[in-house]
Structures are given as structure tokens and as C-alpha cells.
């Protein structure tokens, strides 16, 4: 059992307490989900259990924590690993060895186990998690989802009583994320390992948890059965959000809060009746026209005769599975990579195209938020640097953080900062590659507002696995597969009545008779 008694913690470089007055118990075998906005104390909570606090992160430590009889305050992290396994957010930086087998064996070697016992445990865990085929693979050649599975395997090989997972799916596409969440559920079900999961994505996750703990500014403001807590608290106002079906149920004041599409089928049957989608198709000229585009990396073809037009206004969404060439296409359009065949007709200058990368850290130079954004204008020899930088900071809501180092910002703020380093020169075509990965609901809403406003007068090319975002913002959607655009058209044509691309709400309406099947998001019901 894990027990917190009057626990408080303040990091040594901070004025405020990251966690305050924590009093709770987590029973053996529980599946607990921990949610809260950026800076609410979720990661600190986990660090207080695996004893990184106070041994790795020092500060003011008050109260008492007990983890299966051990006190983290006087137990070093290496001694805690036998009880607590931890999986971190970034799949890249937590894998330390070069080969999967050696990675799983590494903590066991540190435990001083015999070679025979290590072999047994490595085989055991590879088998349990169905990743035997990865045994001899090099870590650098694994996909993000595979890396996260190996990280889980490495933590589970120590036979911990509790597994802590700090946003393990935030860097993954929905399909990989789903397989990780299912795996975690299986570990909890079959092995009885307690789970403490910090997660932003509530759909497909929250219904699996036994218990939901909601944190705000370091305090527990909700703790109990997920449905009860989500009914009691306004999760949107807290910046946490709801699964789309649950939000619709709240919009229509339903007594029962469904958390999955299955649960919603009976509850929400009547809310879609009479809703009719009326949209005028606007003809807009193209900003970029791509004809028969070819590209490959060291002999491997990625784009094979791709044809595509990007309208000069509005958001164009690009969807497709991992490795289908979406990012490569974006880099070619942005002029970063050169096409190996075909033609691209630009109706803007190439330096009027900007691209925000998947990893916002790549946009950091490191002086300050202000200086890093201003750098773009200076590097381009543009005028009115101060005025334009301040205007962008105001638009992004980062004015108060302008003197901070970008690396001190939260994940969501960093994304807005990265966006700022590009929109400061007002590109006529803005390309965004997976902008919502790991973003909290609050920051996602902010990003949506910004992009909606920006797209009124300029073009946005949005690459995303987030079908809700694509459905909300795009007017045109294209599906990339096998190096070609295989489907393109109005978002409702492409995203409705699909088994895998439809957003959650459309999956729900697909089953109802007499309902407009083109409904995609809750905004269509307003």
C-alpha cells in the first residue's frame, strides 16, 4: 500500500509548493489515473513515490510517504526499484543500452542478480508483453511505441509492486498509444501490479481506471471513481477536458455520463435527431500545387507520384498511418528537402512558408522566449522586430513568460512558443506537424483558437493523427498512403462513416437511423 500523510514538497528553485496537504492511500492492485493541468504536481506526485524526491530533486520535504513499508525519504531510488517501476514520458531518453535484451537486463544487472535469473526474467517479460521479436533489435531502430513497450518491459522485469507511468503515450500516435494502454491494463489485470498513470488523453483510457485523482496547483481536488469525479468537477474549466461523448452528454444535461462510445450509444440517441449539417463549399485558389512528386531516402521510395493542391485559405488536414511520408511531404513543401521528381508550383515565395516541427524543443535557441522568437525576424533581416515579437507574444498569451528560458516552459507553453518562432514572420503557408502530441486539453483549445484565427486569411497545412482536431479545424482533408494521396476532399466526405479515421462522435452517429451521418464533432451540435 502507498500512503501519503500531510505531504508537502517545494522544489529548491521554486517559491511555491509543487504538492500540498496530500493525504491519501492507494491500495495494492489499484489502477489509478492521475490528471491535472500543466504544473498541477502530477510528476512530483510520482517522484515522491519512486524517491527521486528528495534524492534526485531536492527541496523542502514535509510530512510522510510510505511505499509498501519503505520511506522514500531515507530510501535511495536504486533500493526503491525493487518495489516501484517507472516509465517516463520520452521513449527516447529512458532507454540506455543499445539492444533490447541488454536494456531489459540492465536494471537486473544492477540488482546483482545471477546470469541465470536475469535470463529467466528477460525471457519471461519478453514473452508476457509479446515482444520476443524485438529481443535482438537495436534500440535506435525501434518505433516510438516499441520503445515505450521496451521501457515498460525493463521496469516490469524488476517485478515491482507498483508501476508508475508519466504520460507514457504523449509522444505516440493513437494506435501505438492504444496498444500501450491495453498493455498497462493487462499488467494490472493479470499480474495485480498497482498502476499509477499520468495521462492527458482521457478517451480510451479513463474508463479503464478504478480511480481518478485530480490535481490542481499541487492539491488533490477530486479522488474517486472516474465517472463520479467527472460528473462532480468541471473538467473543461480545469483544463483537463472530457472524452468527446462525455462532453456531449454534459451539453445535453444527461443524467448518466458515458465514457466510451459503447456507453454513449443508449444515452445520446436523441441528441443528434434533427441536426442537419449545412455548409457552403467555397472555391479558393491554390497556394501550392504538387504534380507527380517523387522522393526517397537511400533508395527507399517514400513519395511515389503524389498530386495535391493546398488552398490559399483555411486548414488542409493530412492524415495517414506512421511512416506514410507525411513529414517528408511537409519538409519538401517547406523547401527543406528537394524533390527528386515531379513539380511543385508555388504561388508564394518559398521564404513565405513556415513549418512548426513535432518536437518544439528543436525551436529553442535558449536565450529567452522573447529573444528566441525575435531571432527569426533578425535572421531574415526583417524590420520592426520588437513590435512584431511583442504582438506575437500577446497573441500566444506568453507575454508574462517572455524573459523565461524556453526550456523552463511547460509542454503546452513550449508548443505555443515554437509556433511563435514561426508565425512571427506571418508565413502565407503555415505547416504544423503533429502539434497536439502530449498537449493538455487547455493548451489544445488555445491552439485551436489560434489556428482558426490564422487560417481566416492564410493557408495552414495540418498533419495530425488527432482526428478530433482535424475534424474541428480542416475544410479539406487528404489521406496519404503508400507515397500517394489516395483520398482527398471535403472533411465530411473523408472523415465520416470510416472505421478508423472517424472522430469519436462520428463513430457514435454511424449506428443511428435517421441521423445526419456527417456529424463529426460536438461543435456541429451547437
Amino acid at each position, binding site marked *: 500500500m502507498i500512503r501519503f500523510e500531510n505531504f508537502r514538497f517545494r522544489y529548491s528553485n521554486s517559491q511555491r509548493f509543487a504538492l500540498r496537504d496530500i493525504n491519501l492511500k492507494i491500495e495494492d492492485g489499484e489502477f489509478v489515473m492521475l490528471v491535472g493541468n500543466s504544473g498541477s504536481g502530477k510528476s512530483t506526485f510520482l517522484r515522491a513515490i*519512486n524517491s*527521486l524526491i528528495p*534524492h*534526485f530533486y531536492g527541496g523542502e520535504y514535509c510530512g510522510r510517504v510510505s511505499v509498501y513499508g519503505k520511506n522514500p525519504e531515507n530510501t535511495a*531510488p*536504486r533500493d526503491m*526499484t525493487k518495489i516501484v517501476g517507472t516509465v*517516463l514520458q*520520452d521513449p*527516447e*531518453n*529512458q*532507454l*540506455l*543500452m*543499445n*539492444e533490447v535484451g*541488454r536494456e531489459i*537486463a*540492465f*536494471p*537486473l*544487472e*544492477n*540488482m*546483482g*542478480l*545471477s*546470469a541465470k535469473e*536475469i*535470463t529467466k526474467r*528477460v525471457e519471461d517479460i519478453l514473452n508476457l508483453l509479446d515482444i520476443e521479436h524485438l529481443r535482438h533489435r537495436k*534500440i*535506435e531502430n525501434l518505433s516510438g511505441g516499441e520503445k515505450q513497450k521496451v521501457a515498460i518491459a*525493463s*521496469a516490469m522485469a*524488476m517485478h515491482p509492486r507498483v508501476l508508475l507511468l508519466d504520460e507514457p503515450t504523449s509522444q505516440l500516435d493513437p494506435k501505438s498509444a492504444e496498444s500501450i494502454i491495453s498493455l498497462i491494463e493487462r499488467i494490472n489485470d493479470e499480474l495485480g501490479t498497482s498502476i499509477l498513470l499520468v495521462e492527458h488523453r482521457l478517451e480510451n483510457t479513463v474508463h479503464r481506471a478504478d480511480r481518478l485523482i485530480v490535481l490542481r496547483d499541487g492539491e488533490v481536488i477530486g479522488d474517486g471513481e472516474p465517472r463520479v469525479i467527472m460528473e462532480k468537477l468541471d473538467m473543461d474549466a480545469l483544463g483537463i477536458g472530457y472524452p468527446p461523448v462525455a462532453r456531449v452528454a454534459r451539453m445535453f444535461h444527461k443524467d448518466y455520463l458515458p465514457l466510451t462510445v459503447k456507453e454513449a450509444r443508449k444515452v445520446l440517441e436523441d441528441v443528434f435527431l434533427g441536426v442537419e449539417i449545412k455548409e457552403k463549399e467555397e472555391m479558393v485558389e491554390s497556394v501550392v500545387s504538387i504534380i507527380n512528386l517523387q522522393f526517397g531516402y537511400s533508395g527507399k521510395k517514400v513519395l511515389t507520384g503524389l498530386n495535391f493542391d493546398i488552398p490559399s485559405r483555411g486548414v488542409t488536414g493530412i492524415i495517414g498511418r506512421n511512416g506514410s511520408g507525411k513529414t517528408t511531404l511537409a*519538409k519538401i513543401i*517547406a*523547401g*527543406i528537402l528537394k524533390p527528386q521528381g515531379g513539380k511543385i508550383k508555388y504561388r508564394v515565395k518559398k*521564404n513565405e512558408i*513556415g*513549418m*512548426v*516541427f513535432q518536437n518544439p*524543443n*528543436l*525551436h*529553442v*535557441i*535558449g536565450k529567452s522566449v522573447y529573444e528566441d522568437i525575435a*531571432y*527569426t525576424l533578425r*535572421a*531574415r533581416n526583417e524590420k520592426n522586430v520588437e513590435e512584431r515579437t511583442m504582438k506575437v507574444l500577446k497573441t500566444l498569451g506568453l507575454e508574462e513568460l517572455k524573459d523565461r528560458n524556453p*526550456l523552463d516552459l511547460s509542454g503546452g507553453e513550449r508548443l505555443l512558443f515554437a509556433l511563435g*518562432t*514561426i508565425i512571427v*514572420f506571418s508565413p502565407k503557408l503555415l505547416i504544423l506537424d503533429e502539434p497536439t502530441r502530449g498537449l493538455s486539453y487547455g493548451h489544445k483549445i488555445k491552439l485551436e483558437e489560434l489556428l482558426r484565427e490564422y487560417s481566416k486569411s492564410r493557408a495552414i497545412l495540418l498533419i495530425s493523427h488527432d482526428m478530433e482536431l482535424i475534424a474541428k479545424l480542416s475544410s479539406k482533408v487528404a489521406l496519404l498512403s503508400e507515397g500517394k494521396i489516395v483520398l482527398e476532399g471535403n472533411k465530411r466526405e473523408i472523415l465520416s462513416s470510416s472505421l478508423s479515421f472517424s472522430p469519436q462522435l462520428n463513430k457514435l452517429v454511424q449506428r443511428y437511423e435517421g441521423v445526419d451521418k456527417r456529424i463529426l464533432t460536438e461543435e456541429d451540435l451547437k
Partner: protein
Amino acid sequence: MRINAMVVFIWLILIVFASLIFNSLLLLSLLFISSLVPSVFLDFKKYAKYMLYSLFAVLFIFVFNTILMGFSSLMFSTTMSLRLLSITSAFAIFSLTVDFEHMILLLEKLKFPQKSVVSLSLSLRFFPVAINDAERIKEVMIARGVHFEKKKMKERIKSRIPMFSSLFLISLERSVQIAEALELRGFPAEKRLVWKPLKIGAKEKILILGLLFDFALIFYSIFSPSFAELSALIPLIIVGGFTK
């Protein structure tokens, strides 16, 4: 074909040791042959590439010595060149047979401190990641409108400074995360055991004994030339390590 890293390591030390002890043209020539023969079991193109670099150094030795001391230095230049070629050849053989992974196992076997070994292993793991970061940062710079190619050399260097700053900060943040992950994997350990240590079988033991015996023989050659030629050829027993 993989040869045991420990055998090659001892062989390498032996070649370096012998090339420093031997002075005669004959012995150094025999030693060079001993250091050259294992290349037939390896990627000869790669081996030749390594050796090509040392040929430039050989040329330099000859030209430099001839200018300074005239043609009387030819003998000296030849022995120095043979020394250099033997050592380069031995290192080329070592790097073509022992990959980084086995190098780490070798260091573990040689009881190097665990922190140094794991640090070395981490550098191997994260070097390609850092290279990838550098490429992505350059792409972001292009996306922000910085064009490296169009500028003059001075401006090009100047425009790369923010790139290095960015790479440094990302690496710094990564290093904190790696440190955190190491702690959570129980490192550094009080008593760490290696899962699959470098195995030294009967054949390897015989080869190592042979090489160690040669150390003694080479040392003996300083005082008596009786077995000197033999000692220069004994390193050839390494060929046994390449066969099954």
C-alpha cells in the same frame, strides 16, 4: 567472422610493444607481415582505406628525414615507417574486428570502473540521436528562414552559432533525463553483475597464453637475438582466432 575481443586486444598490445622494442629491418618487416595477415579475413577495402592514411605519414617521414639528414637517413626512415605501418595495421585490424558493443564487454572484463563503462555505452547509444537532433535543428532554422548556403563563409559560421546553442541545450536536457532514467534502473549499483560477460573459451585461452609467451620472448630479444625472428612471427597465431 567475429574473433574474441580479449584476444585481439592482447594481440594489439603485443604488436605495439614489439614495434617499439625491435630495431632491425628484418624483425620489423616480419612484424609488419604478422600485423597484415589477419586482414585477409576482414573487409579488405576498409582495411586498405585505413592503411592509405598511414602511407601519407610514411611519405612524410621519408621526405622530412631526407631534408633534415640527407640520404643517410634512409635506413632510419624505413624502420620508422615499418613501425608506424605495423601499429596502424594492428589498430585497423582491432577496429574492424571489435565493435563498440564488444569493446564495452571487454572493458567490463578488464574491470574498468562501472561508471566509465556505462558512460561509454551511453555515448554509443546517444551519438546517433545527437546527430539526428543536429539535422532537425538545421531544418528548423531553414523553416525559420535562415539560409546557410546563400551566405558568405563568415555569415555562415555566424548563423550556425544558434544551432550549436540549441543542440547544447537539448543535449543538456537529455542528459538530465538520462541521469533520472539511470537512477530509476538502479544505477550506480553496489554490486553489479554482467548478464552476458565476454566469454573466454579453451581456444582463446591457448591463444592468449601464446601471445603472453611472446611478450616474454620479445623482451628476451633485447638481450639475446636467438629467438627474435620467431617472436616477430608468433603474433600470427591470431589467425587461429578467426577459424572455427
